């Protein structure tokens, strides 16, 4: 074949990774285009491009946009480049409105125009402090979705916020519900008596989904970032979030969702919680502690509500071959919870976010062992969109796990809500249908989520998966399906 590779650098052009993903997809769909990647020339993207067989000029910097095209032949180039222009322009269409005001270039500038605003920061981690500090300087709370923010910068932000009575949600805060408004990857829930402080995004989403199913609403769920209860940060944001929820008369019970904090931090947290008027339930996920579903059940009991049966739809059949459980997750806490449950029954589980260091996986994320991979981990999202937005990497690994004859059962999570992929079942369905091993899915979402819980369940079941609302339930079921376990 007479194919043509075309690689060009565009210094100074910039678009966020999600936009560029959409642009790449649009260009891939053009006639004569065999492969297309439009991306910022980050180390990771250059690696991806190199793997795809493109030669990226060595002088490319992270501030350059790379357009890489593989074409059936040279005649397709002009149309393909025109397609790239069109897709980039379409992606930026919001910038040119009828208004003569150019869009603000910094968070500070935007807040001068919108003095009542809450700031939502999802720029690359190296620039997150600068944008977030704009919000604190202007006297506003801020949610930082960005990951890869250095610890000392997190401390700087949180100390500043503490001095000024402001709340920093994050960094690496995937989810928040502030007075009913969902931010980041948030599920749509009714207002109600529960307030959540979460050091874990998907852990929070599991709680939101289970409480919603039990008919209990949540007024606010304030994310604080995974490191907030570490010995270094000492719960600076957790305390401010607790103070805010305690002051909210609508909140009857506060739940703190986190991994077990450092010992002295746990003591401080308990002391602080005891001083509040509102009761606080600590849902601390760790070895020998209740899982998130059990914690939710305790919350329901404390509120005097009935504990429902957590829904399961579809039925997987027991594994007939293979000896290993393979978990492929987009939610870090969901992966963590599954590992805690599985390792207590099956023994050690290898992972990129291992329960202990010797269980770490190599760069290829595979091992002749039980494995569970968190595709949302910082190391896998630097320079790339989160897997709840870009399913490519996980789909690739799903196909690999299915082709591996040592794989007995596959365990997946699917997380719905604002900001997530608009129809994850449509992407995962065909992939699941092609898998011969049993597939169990933890589907975290609510009926009111933009994707619609019911339709997603139906599509996944139709593809052959067994679908659980409880991640702990899904994990136990996957273990049960393992050969020799049932």
């Amino acid at each position, binding site marked *: 074949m007479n194919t043509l590779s075309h690689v060009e650098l565009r210094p100074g052009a910039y678009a966020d990774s999600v936009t560029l993903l959409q642009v790449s997809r649009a260009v891939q769909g053009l006639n004569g285009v065999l492969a297309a990647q439009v991306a910022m020339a980050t180390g990771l993207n250059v690696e991806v491009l190199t793997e795809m067989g493109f030669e990226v000029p060595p002088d490319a910097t992270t501030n350059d946009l790379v357009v890489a095209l593989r074409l059936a032949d040279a005649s397709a180039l002009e149309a393909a480049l025109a397609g790239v222009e069109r897709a980039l322009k379409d992606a930026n269409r919001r910038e040119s409105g009828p208004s003569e005001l150019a869009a603000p270039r*910094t968070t500070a500038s935007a807040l001068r125009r919108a003095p009542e605003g809450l*700031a939502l920061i999802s720029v690359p981690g*190296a620039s997150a402090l600068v*944008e977030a500090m704009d919000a604190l300087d202007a006297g506003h709370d801020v949610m930082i979705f960005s990951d890869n923010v250095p610890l000392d910068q997190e401390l700087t932000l949180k100390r500043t916020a503490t001095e000024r009575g402001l709340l920093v949600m994050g960094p690496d805060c995937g989810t928040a519900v502030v007075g009913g*408004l969902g931010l980041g990857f948030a599920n749509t829930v009714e207002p109600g008596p529960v307030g959540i402080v979460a050091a874990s995004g998907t852990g929070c989403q599991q709680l939101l989904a289970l409480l919603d199913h039990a008919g209990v609403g949540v007024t606010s769920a304030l994310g604080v970032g995974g490191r907030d209860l570490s010995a270094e940060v000492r719960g600076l944001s957790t305390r401010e979030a607790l103070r805010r929820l305690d002051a909210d008369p609508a909140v009857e019970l506060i739940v703190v969702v986190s991994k077990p904090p450092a010992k002295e931090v746990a003591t401080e947290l308990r002391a602080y919680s005891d001083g509040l008027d509102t009761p606080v339930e600590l849902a601390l996920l760790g070895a020998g502690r209740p899982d998130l579903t059990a914690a939710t059940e305790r919350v329901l009991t404390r509120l005097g509500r009935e504990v429902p049966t957590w829904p399961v739809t579809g039925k997987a059949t027991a594994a007939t071959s293979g000896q290993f459980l393979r978990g492929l997750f987009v939610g870090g806490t969901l992966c963590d919870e599954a590992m805690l449950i599985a390792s207590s029954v099956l023994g050690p589980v290898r992972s990129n976010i291992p329960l202990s260091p010797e269980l770490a996986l190599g760069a290829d994320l595979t091992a002749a062992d039980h494995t569970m991979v968190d595709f949302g981990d910082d190391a896998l999202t630097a320079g790339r969109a989160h897997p709840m937005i870009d399913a490519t990497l996980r789909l690739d690994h799903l196909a690999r796990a299915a082709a591996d004859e040592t794989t007995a059962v596959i365990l997946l999570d699917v997380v719905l809500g604002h900001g997530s992929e608009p129809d994850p079942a449509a992407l995962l369905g065909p992939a699941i249908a092609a898998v011969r091993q049993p597939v169990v899915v933890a589907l975290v979402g609510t009926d009111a989520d933009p994707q619609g819980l019911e339709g997603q369940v139906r599509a996944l079941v139709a593809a052959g998966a067994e679908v659980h609302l409880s991640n702990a339930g899904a994990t136990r079921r996957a273990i049960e399906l393992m050969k020799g376990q049932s």
Partner: protein
Amino acid sequence: MTTPTHVVSAGVDLFADAVAAQAVDVTRVDWRPPLPGTEADLAAVVGDPRRHAANERAVAAMLGVTARLVDVAPASEVLGLQRGQFLHAGPPITWDRASGPMRGALMGGAALEGLVTDPEDAVALFESGSGVELEPCHHRRTVGPMAGVVTPSMWMFVLEDTTTGARTHCSLNEGLGKVLRYGAYGPDVLTRLGWMRDVLGPLLQSAVRSVRDSTGPVDVTGILTQMLQMGDEAHNRNRAGTLMMLRDLAPAMVASGRDSTDVAEALRFIGSNDHFFLNLAMPACKLALDAARDIDGSTMVVAMARNGTDFGIQVSGTGNEWFTGPAQVADGLYLGDFGPEDANPDIGDSAITETAGIGGFAMATAPAIVRLVGGSVPDALATTRRMHEITLEENPRWTVPVLEFQGVPTGIDVTLVCRTGILPQINTGMAGAKAGVGQVGAGLVNPPLEIFPKALTRLAERARVARVD
């Protein structure tokens, strides 16, 4: 907690879409990566706990200054300038690196002071360096337009902030065309400078002192407030300001008892020189900015100045250090047959006006001159709005009627320049590259990009040291 009524989103558009889908207003930041390699320094400087309060102090100090014209006197008296000492525009420079117009102005200055009879003979004098000293105006609480050459016998405006007693100085404006500040040093130029020394200076001194002692010194900051509402941006257009100054000084000039022919000539000279007020606007801006100097942790630019070779900035939080890069050639319109090849790189302390938020920063208020500098009215509005992206505050006194009386963009922040890549916009006159030619055009120019990351690096070093202490 109450539901937010508005969200500002910087980063992934999808999250902004998700907020909009919940019927809450979203303002989207058009975020782009900062200047290459500045991320770590930006985080260190923006994360410096001193920065926010330091910048608030710097801005407040600057806005708190009212400049009043308290005296006119020779540089030898008010600056202690000795025979053989020359002040010049911009950051420090030596004769061997000086550009054509800077050399021309120094040569003319040497002849004016009688160090040489023929200006051409001054070349040898400056090459030898014996008995001559060059020093930036900025180092003596002074500013000078274009070459900015000040010699001991030149008469200076003296401006004072009456609250603090702080003072700044600037020479008297010679008019346009073939003038010393544009590097011309012919006989006409020296004759005019002689008349300014012997007639205009003493006359203005008596008028300014008389006004000062009767109705109080002229409020230059107040005139700036008014002229910005009258189509002047106070760098390339000073017509309204000049006429208001004339209004305030003319009665005292006439009543001075001096020769009526001299008075008439002085009134004609000032009235026909649209730029006469520039030499008052500049020291008024410097007086305000000097009040914001030397505040630890502040990232505010307190001076932008060019010597025809280098463009330099000084920053409040880094003391008197200059951060310099090559001065650029302005883009604009040329007089007569002159073209880009005739123009010298950017020169003069007049960018102190932009540093203070007027000049190119207030372009929106001066639509009458946008063509002079090669722009359009929409460009002018966009320029002023764009400058708000790199400044800390809006000036409550100096406002722009066409922008709904929005205050001019005030306090250039080094971090905002590095974050956005937006450079300060300067309106400027262009000097001929050859000594002796004079003005060749006017246009728009920016500082060299690299000086802002240089300043940022020094701020970051200081922030890291402060943190350890």
